C-alpha cells in the first residue's frame, strides 16, 4: 500500500527508459534521404493533406547532425552508398532508420550491379516498409511501428549492448543466399 496505488497506473513506477522513449518518439526529427520516387511520397507526407507534423516530425532536417531518424527513400546506387553511410555516421545517437519502399529495402525490381540490394547492407535498418512507392499513410504506419519499437528499446549502455548482441547474432545467422525455401 504505497502512494502509487492511489495514482493512475504506473505514474511513479514507469520504467525510466519508457519515459525517455515516449519523449524520443514524440519529437523525432527525420533526416530526409530522398533518392527516387519514394521521396515524392515522403514529401507528400509532409504536406497539409497528410501532415507529418502530427507525429512531431514537422522539422524535416536538411542536416544529419540534428536528426534522429533516417528515412532512406528510393534505390541506393553503389556510388551513393558511402554517402548514405557518412550521413548515418554524422547523426547523433540515439538514431533510427526506416527503409522506405521496395528498392531501399531489398533492391526491388532493380536486381543489377548498379543498385545496392537493400540499404541494410550499409546501415542498420529498424523498420522495412514495402510498397512501390508506399503511400503516405503507409509511411505513417511505418513511423507508428517505429514508435512502438522506440518506447520498448533500451537506452544508454544497454542500447550499445543490445546493438552488439544484435550484430553478433546477425554474424552467426545463416546468410540469406544460403537459406532454402525462403527468398533471399
Amino acid at each position, binding site marked *: 500500500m504505497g502512494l502509487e496505488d492511489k495514482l493512475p497506473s504506473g505514474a511513479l513506477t514507469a520504467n525510466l527508459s519508457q519515459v525517455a522513449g515516449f519523449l524520443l518518439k514524440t519529437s523525432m526529427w527525420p533526416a530526409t534521404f530522398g533518392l527516387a520516387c519514394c521521396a515524392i511520397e515522403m514529401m507528400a507526407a509532409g504536406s*497539409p*493533406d*497528410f*501532415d507529418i507534423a*502530427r507525429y512531431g516530425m514537422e522539422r524535416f532536417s536538411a542536416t544529419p547532425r540534428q536528426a534522429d531518424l533516417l528515412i532512406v527513400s528510393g534505390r541506393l546506387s553503389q556510388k551513393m552508398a558511402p554517402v548514405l553511410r557518412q550521413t548515418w555516421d554524422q547523426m547523433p545517437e540515439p538514431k533510427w532508420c526506416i527503409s522506405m519502399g*521496395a528498392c531501399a*529495402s*531489398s*533492391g*526491388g*525490381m532493380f*536486381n543489377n550491379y548498379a543498385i545496392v540490394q*537493400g540499404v*541494410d547492407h550499409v546501415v542498420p535498418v*529498424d*523498420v*522495412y*516498409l*514495402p*510498397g*512501390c512507392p*508506399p*503511400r503516405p*499513410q*503507409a509511411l*505513417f*504506419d*511505418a513511423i*507508428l*511501428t517505429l514508435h512502438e*519499437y522506440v518506447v520498448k528499446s533500451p537506452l544508454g549502455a544497454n542500447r550499445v549492448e543490445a546493438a552488439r548482441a544484435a550484430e553478433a547474432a546477425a554474424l552467426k545467422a545463416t546468410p*540469406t543466399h544460403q537459406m532454402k*525455401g*525462403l*527468398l533471399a
Partner: protein
Amino acid sequence: MGMFDAWAGFGVTFRTMFKKPFTESYPKKPFVTAPRFHGRHQLNRWPDGLEKCVGCELCAWACPADAIYVEGAENTDEDRYSPGERYGRVYQINYLRCILCGLCIEACPTRALTMTNEFELADHSREALIYEKDRLLAPLLTGMEAPPHPRRLGPDEQSYFLGLPPTGTPDTRVASAPKGEEK
C-alpha cells in the same frame, strides 16, 4: 495605408481557426483506399474451402521483380487441397521485392491470386516480410472447410470451373458432401 492594415493578416489566422481542417486523421480513422488499390495479395478459395491455386507458377513467371516463389505438388484423393491435379504446396511473396504492379493477378488463370486493399505492411525484419501461405490464404468463410478434404462442389474438376456464375456475380454455390461420405 490605414492604421489597421498591419492587423488585417491576423484576421485570416483568426478565421482559419473556425474552418474545418482538411488534414486526414489516418491512424485514428481507418483510411479507405480506392476500391481497386493494389495492396497485399490474397490466395482465394472455392466456396467449399479448397484452394484455387493450381501451382502453375505463371505468377512467378510474370513477376518483373522475381518476388514470387511457387512450388507445386500433386493432389491425391486422400490429401486434396485443390479440385484439380496439382496445388501450390509452397507459395511465398517477398514484399520487399514486390512492386505491387498486379501483373501476377493478370497472369493467374484461375483467379486464385487477387489483391486486397491492405497497405499496412511495415515490419522489422526481412524474414517477416516474406509472406507464406499462412498469411496469404483467404480466411475461411461460412460453409468453407479447411483443406485437405474431398471435392464438395462436384464430382470432378470441370464441375468447379463450368459451374461458375457469369462474370460480376458472386459464386453462391453451397458445398455438399459427395456420395459415399454423407453422414
